[in-house]
Structures are given as structure tokens and as C-alpha cells.
């Protein structure tokens, strides 16, 4: 265990660090503020140039239309500068927040540096579904594409987090009902 990579500690039940990074508009955003009181998908991706990322982004776009009515938030995180992230976000028609870790401070804190790419030094593709207090509910390692979550897996994760989060998951009974 002593030689386990740093990234392996970020498993379900552990709490992610509450880091602060600039968003695609250049405004500093704290992860816990981004989560608010809702379930959050933290999507770490290599960069716009990776065909696997372009393919996976389309999967998230299909889920976006459900998330927009389900009190669920997405945050995508890469080493791209804000202007580059903003351009890719606009091209995708993504309507969620993109964070920029240009100096790779959070990347190294999480141990998610992809060492096989010595040109971009990007994030290892990784998805975390987290509770509002940043406790990890699920993690998916996407170095190989099939490791990435399907839309159905993400729906199931969001369902479980929301079920635990909303006291009225079972709607209140009418007055006088048993």
C-alpha cells in the first residue's frame, strides 16, 4: 500500500480537496461553491485535442438535457487556459463550468498527471461523482476509453446521491394520510 500511486487514495468515501481554480471566464471558483447543495460530476479530461475526449464530451452532452432539470451540476477540469477551455466549451455547446489548472497544482495534488504524454502533461481522464460535501460517491478511470462511465452509470450514481440528499425523495403524504 505504501507504494500505491497518490491518485488511488481518491476513492469512494474519501473527500476531494476543496480547491480553487479559474473558470472559463477567468473567475476564481471554489469546488464546494460549484457543488452548492447538489450532486456534482467532476470530469477531468486531457484536452480539446484528444479524440477520446471529444467523443466522451458528446456523451455528457446527451446527459446534459436531463441534468438541467435534475438539480445536478457538471464541472470539467483540464490544464487548458481559460480562453482555450471557453472556446472548446462554446464549440461543444456545453452549458456547464470548465476549470483551468494551467499550473497543474490541483493535478499534482490529486496525483492525476498522465505521464505517458510528455507534451501536454494533461490530466488522466477521470470522472468523479461527488456529494455536496465533496465526498466521492463513484470514480471512473478513463485512460482506456471503456473505463469511462456510461450515461446509464452516471444516472444510477446521481440517483443514489440524490436519494440520500433529498429528505422528500419519497414525497410527503397528504395531510391525514398514514
Amino acid at each position, binding site marked *: 500500500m505504501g507504494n500505491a500511486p497518490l491518485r488511488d487514495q481518491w476513492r469512494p468515501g474519501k473527500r476531494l480537496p476543496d480547491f480553487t481554480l479559474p*473558470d*472559463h*471566464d477567468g*473567475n476564481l*471558483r471554489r469546488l464546494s*461553491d*460549484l457543488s*452548492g*447543495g*447538489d450532486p456534482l460530476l467532476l470530469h477531468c479530461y486531457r484536452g480539446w485535442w484528444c479524440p477520446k475526449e471529444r467523443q466522451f464530451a458528446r456523451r455528457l452532452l446527451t446527459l*446534459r*438535457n436531463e*441534468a*438541467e*432539470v*435534475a*438539480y*445536478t*451540476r*457538471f*464541472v470539467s477540469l483540464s490544464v487548458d487556459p481559460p480562453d482555450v477551455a*471557453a472556446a472548446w466549451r*462554446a464549440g461543444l*455547446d*456545453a*452549458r*456547464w*463550468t470548465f476549470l483551468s489548472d494551467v499550473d497543474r497544482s490541483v493535478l499534482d495534488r490529486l496525483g492525476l498527471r498522465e505521464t505517458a504524454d510528455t507534451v501536454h502533461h494533461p490530466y488522466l481522464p477521470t470522472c468523479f461523482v461527488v456529494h455536496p460535501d465533496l465526498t466521492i460517491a463513484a470514480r471512473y478511470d478513463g485512460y482506456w476509453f471503456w473505463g469511462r462511465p456510461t450515461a446509464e452509470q452516471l444516472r444510477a450514481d446521481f440517483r443514489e446521491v440524490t436519494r440520500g440528499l433529498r429528505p422528500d425523495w419519497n414525497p410527503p403524504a397528504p395531510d391525514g394520510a398514514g
Partner: protein
Amino acid sequence: MSQPSVSWVALVQSGSPPRGARYSLATFTLDSRPAGWFLGWTNPGRPHPAALRIDPRLLSEAGPAMLMSLALPEANARPLIDDPAVLEARRASLRHRSPAARSTLSADPVHWAGTLTVARRGVPLEEAALDDDPWARLAPTQRLAVGAGIFTAVPAPVGPSIERYGGTHPWPYDRF
């Protein structure tokens, strides 16, 4: 300091500022003609017949001078807040680069009564965001200027959620 949960604004036409508002600033058109008084309150109850609820995070004495885009439908022509056109304007607000802040305005839990979008003066990207205000497609819209001391910048909504957090809250107030 805790954030008030209910805040109101109104643009009123009068020669002198009406009394009783927590915030009261003269407002001008972009060619410097007087355009009335922009008022703000943090009362739980409606403080003025023209007052509309706003995301309380937008009001601040510490805020800088702002340019505004104020879309206001006629009171008898307000669409439902969940009308597809209003939903699409919310999506467009998430899609575009951000102004300093934006809030829908509400007079009741079910209708869209307007949207206020503000940009800090001298911040070109924010000012440019007012040029393509998606809410301007839904209602007559005024471009106005107001001095420091009433509106502040609020982080953009995270997305992709576009739902209100409770029927009476303006969007994008993002907590239950």
C-alpha cells in the same frame, strides 16, 4: 454577513428618489439622459407596487458602477417562467460568456416578470455580453447605466441545471 433571502428592485420614474428603499440610485440612458431611480429593498414583503423579486446576491452597497440590460415584459403579457422560450433564454445565459451578474425578476411564483443583466463598466467582455442579451428576444429591453453602490458581480451559474430552487426564487439563485 448573512445574505437576505428575499430582495426586491424597481425602476421608478420620479423627480426625486422615493423614500424607504435601502438602495436608491439615479439611472441614465447610455447617452446620459435621466431614466429614473433604481431602487432596492431586502424586505420580506413587497415594498412598492412596482417592485420585483431579484436574486439577493446581486444587491450590494460595495458594488461598482454598472451597465444594465433590463428586459421587462408588460405586466399583462408575462409568459410562464417555464415557457419554452424562457427556458431557452436560461440555456442561452449559461451558454454565453458571462456578464457580471444576471437575475430573472418575479412578481409571483409562476410568471417571468423580467431579467436584469449587469456588466461592470470598463470590462469589455462583460459589456459585450449585454450586446447579445438572450432575454431581449422576449421583451422590450432598456440599456441603462447606474453608479456604484447597488449591484455587484455574482459568479455564473454552474450548469447545466436551469431549474429554480423553489417556486418563488428568481433564477439563478442556486440553493434551496
